[in-house]
């Protein structure tokens, strides 16, 4: 169960979630995911919309064995911090890999995957996961 089931909430984020749309700060040069108005590091406004590289490496990871209610039945699954080429960091699931095969520093690439269902009759949420790079 998702606490706040909502179609528009998923719809409005779709471009950022499906295409890894980030922001580049005109002042400090930081690249962040997802795109937003204000740079979290220096406070500058007007971040440029950029499509982020789809390759990166695992900075840290965990294996979720006790999931929240909307992921029950999918455990165990791996959630990782992925640093993309260019420096933006994304929190995402890893896929097409066994939990015991994941390593820090592992090279990964973005793929489009299903994340969760808001309820049995609700909208299905999709987004980017990462798999070992080929």
């Amino acid at each position, binding site marked *: 169960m998702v606490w706040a089931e909502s179609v528009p909430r998923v719809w409005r984020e779709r471009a950022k979630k499906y295409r890894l749309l980030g922001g580049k700060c005109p002042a400090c040069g930081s690249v962040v995911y997802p795109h937003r108005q204000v740079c979290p590091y220096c406070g500058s406004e007007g971040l440029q919309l950029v499509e982020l590289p789809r390759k990166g490496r695992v900075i840290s990871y965990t294996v979720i*064995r*006790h999931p929240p209610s909307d992921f029950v039945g999918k455990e165990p699954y791996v959630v990782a911090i992925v640093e993309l080429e260019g420096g933006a960091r994304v929190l995402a699931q890893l896929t097409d890999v066994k939990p015991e095969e994941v390593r820090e520093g592992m090279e990964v690439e973005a793929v489009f995957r299903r994340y969760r269902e808001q309820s049995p009759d609700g909208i299905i949420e999709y987004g980017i996961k990462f798999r070992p790079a080929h």
Partner: protein
Amino acid sequence: MKRVFIVGAGATKVGEHWDRSLRDLAVEALLAAVRDAGIDKRDVQALYVGNMMSGELQGQEHLGALVATWAGMAGVAAFKVEAACASGGAALHQAYLAVASGLYDCVAVVGVEKMTDALPHDVTSALLTAEDQEYVVFTGATFVGLNALVYRMYMSRYGVKQEDVARFAVHCHKMAVNNPYAQFRREVTLEEVMSSPPIADPIRLLECAPVGDGAAALVLCNEDFLKRSPRDVLVEVAGSAVATDILSVHERRDPLAMAGFRKAAEAAMKRAGIEAKDVDVLEVHDAFTVLGVLTLEALGYAPPGKGWQLVAEGQLEPGGEIPTNTMGGLKARGHPVGGTGVYQVFDIVRQLRGEAGANQVEGAEIGLAQNLGGVAGTVAVHVLRRVR
């Protein structure tokens, strides 16, 4: 600014209170604090309720009026303060500001959480309302998982073994044995911690604060109002500060930096005119063992990567270099989320008044409590000083 004193402190035992509701717990703690202050509850001019999840777990908001009504205090200025697991510390900060500003002479704060009304997966989901729903909760990460990301980085960077970090839980359980308010009054061994099931690798079950119910309350007042209380040993809120960090750890330039730890502690200590070395009793927010160790390092009690040594040497026990979580901390006293920040100060008040029993830190004069929300996205720090 007026000086602010704690004249009353009360709490319920932390535990699985199947027979008691959120309002029952809050009222019990609040009335205990008022009785402890030796004042009339009608003298309390404002009430701050620290709570995180009543909306999700009880479908109940508007806690200010609810608790005031059931405590027989309707009419008082009252509202809920929410800052995830730092709700209690944030509510205390509001109470402090209210008296320091001179607007009120006497106020109360109660931190409360009732977690056992809901199923475990739903509690996990409710806790996640503290994180970014669109880009973090969406991934299926849990709070244990987010802390596990930090834990793995910490071990890799400093070459620290999990056994060393996990020792923090053993310490907390040992301390809780002598705390009648604690959820778990029994010791655990390092072997038990390390062989408990993994929840989110590398974090194991016995490295996590438990789910529990409880409420703690404090009565705060200014110098003039003190004359109405019969207490002779007083505790002053010498410093109170709240700081935030970038919400999600993966977005922080260094996920191990924990900038909020230092920022809030430095602000509170500056206000109190003390340094970290002056602290006699420390309460840290050990929701997971690694957070306890990271805090010891951030406050300068140990160099980075070496916090575990203080635990291993027994320096966190009464009589040690820096007595820490002497009533069991989040791990063993318990972590009724919105209550925790107030429980920490309740525990320090007992130490400063010399009421800590077998775990008394002799001559304790200065205490510091650190309360975290999320993965330290919010940090509330209070410095308490005994005043004769």
